């Protein structure tokens, strides 16, 4: 009897709670929807901007045209900046991924003196404000002729990108079972053979994710690129920055849409791959 009362009472509380939480959910949906709209609006708005017919920024746009994309792809200045950025990003991806992967192996698995300081140094470029790095590099590069220079950019961007590689590869290495490598060594493999045949294939998703982060850390980077670009060698982000200040046309919206698409495609690929592998591990 008393038990049944308790059960009934509990159910009543739960049902009341259920109704209350449903109303709360409905009430919460409106402000949360507004906040999400605020978050998403600036990303979405550049797309209609880039296909509007008017040469002035106009919203909503009146007609549909691709002439701003044509203008972008046929303008030698924009194309030069785009190629310069792409070359830098590809070279940065390569150097940052190789350097970062090797270092991650040593930082996770190696016997190193002053390991904590090395780890702190690795993460430092993520913490130090980019404006401080930008001004420092500008003053360092200017007398060496590295301003507006491909190699100067690769050094700067590799330094900014390498922490992302070290973080993602370290995470992958921690999930890797070192006994597998030990087994290979026991079967007569050298350290190098064991690394390339056993370790690397196992941590490849982490390395690939690190490489994508490195590419975007370079391709989307704007603060340092603003300071170490030259009149000749300038990145797409520096060119955008200049045009926003002096020559605000819908071409910038077209370039923005292209940049956003590149980032979104690359990042969603990683995210989907990550979710899939998480899913696979749980099963």
């Amino acid at each position, binding site marked *: 009897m008393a038990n049944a009362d308790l059960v009934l009472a509990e159910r009543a509380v739960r049902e009341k709670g259920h109704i209350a939480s449903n109303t709360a959910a409905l009430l919460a949906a409106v*402000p949360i929807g507004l906040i999400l709209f605020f978050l998403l609006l600036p990303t979405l708005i550049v797309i209609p901007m880039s296909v509007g017919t008017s040469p002035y920024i106009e919203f909503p746009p009146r007609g549909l045209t691709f002439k701003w994309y044509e203008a972008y792809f046929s303008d030698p200045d924009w194309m030069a900046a785009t190629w310069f950025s792409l070359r830098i990003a590809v070279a940065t991806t390569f150097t940052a991924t190789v350097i970062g992967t090797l270092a991650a192996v040593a930082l996770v698995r190696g*016997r190193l003196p002053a390991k904590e300081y090395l780890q702190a140094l690795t993460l*430092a470029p993520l913490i130090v404000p980019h404006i401080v*790095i930008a*001004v420092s590099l500008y003053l360092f590069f200017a007398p060496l002729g590295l301003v507006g220079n491909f190699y100067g950019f690769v050094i700067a961007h590799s*330094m900014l990108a390498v922490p992302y590689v070290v973080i993602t590869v370290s995470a992958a290495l921690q999930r890797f079972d070192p006994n597998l490598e030990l087994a290979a060594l026991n079967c007569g493999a050298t350290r190098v053979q064991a690394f390339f045949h056993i370790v690397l294939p196992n941590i490849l998703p982490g390395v690939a994710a690190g490489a994508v982060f490195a590419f975007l850390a370079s391709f989307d980077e704007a603060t340092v690129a603003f*300071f170490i670009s030259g009149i000749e060698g300038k990145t797409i982000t520096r060119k955008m920055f200049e045009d926003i200040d002096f020559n605000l046309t819908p071409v910038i*919206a077209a370039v923005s849409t292209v940049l956003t698409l590149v980032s979104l495609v690359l990042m969603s690929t990683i995210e989907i791959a990550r979710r899939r592998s998480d899913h696979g591990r749980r099963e």
Partner: protein
Amino acid sequence: MRAKPLAGSPFGGRPTSAREYGPGLSLLLVAPLVLLLVGGFLYPVGKLFWGSIFVPEATFANYGRILQEPLFLLVLWRTFEIAFVVTALALLLGYPVALAMARVSGRTAILIAACVLVPLWTSVLVRSYAWIVLLQRNGVVNNALIETGLTETPLRLLYTQGAVIAAMTQVLLPFMILPIYSVVRNIPDDLVRAARNLGAGSLQAFFRVTVPLSLPGVTAGVLITFILSLGFYITPALVGGPGTLMMSTLIGQQTTELLDWPFAGALAAVLLAATLLLVIFFRRALALNKGFKLG
């Protein structure tokens, strides 16, 4: 046995000795990274700070200038003020989103996650440009205000402190939401249900169970947002004007327009010191969270 990551360090704990790489090989593997970070980061930044004191001769005059000229004190104050307001707004807007993201499932969860991640993955430059489009004289916001009859003449929205705060809040909001979400997601539902069964109302259960348990995420989110706001350059440089000069934009101006780089070095040192003090003081709270894309 799997190597488990040590809490608080992205590199994990100490591996067992047989599976370690020897010191010689380890040093060789880490050498290129050290070379890159010393040559491309430590040396240039150190050189800037050295110059702020020893060029043309040993003096702290550049640092004295920051404290003596009212303009620079104002910029310093404004930087902290904007960072504070942006962080508070981000917390106010971000907390409910993080909570909703953790509570819902299925399609709604993916939708909310996309709304948070898509802006995070959009270049800061693109988002700052979008804010110019929104806020300029004949921009989207002014057009909407005129059409709804709220104002007759376009308002001056761009290049104001309000514009900088709105744009920076939007740009940094994901850095607040994600750490809170990662903590709230792991609070067991049972705890809230237990509180309700013990007679707590939904509000009481929220404030006495969910909120205290989410505090580690809140601390991490607040710190990351505040630290990023202090040194943010692109957004204040594009959306702000001469009246909204912050430490970062002042450093840029001193370097590119006034060519006074010893003074720029002193300003950079102050900005870096503020950042590092926060990081070192709160490093435990920050270790919760790593690997996000920083601006």
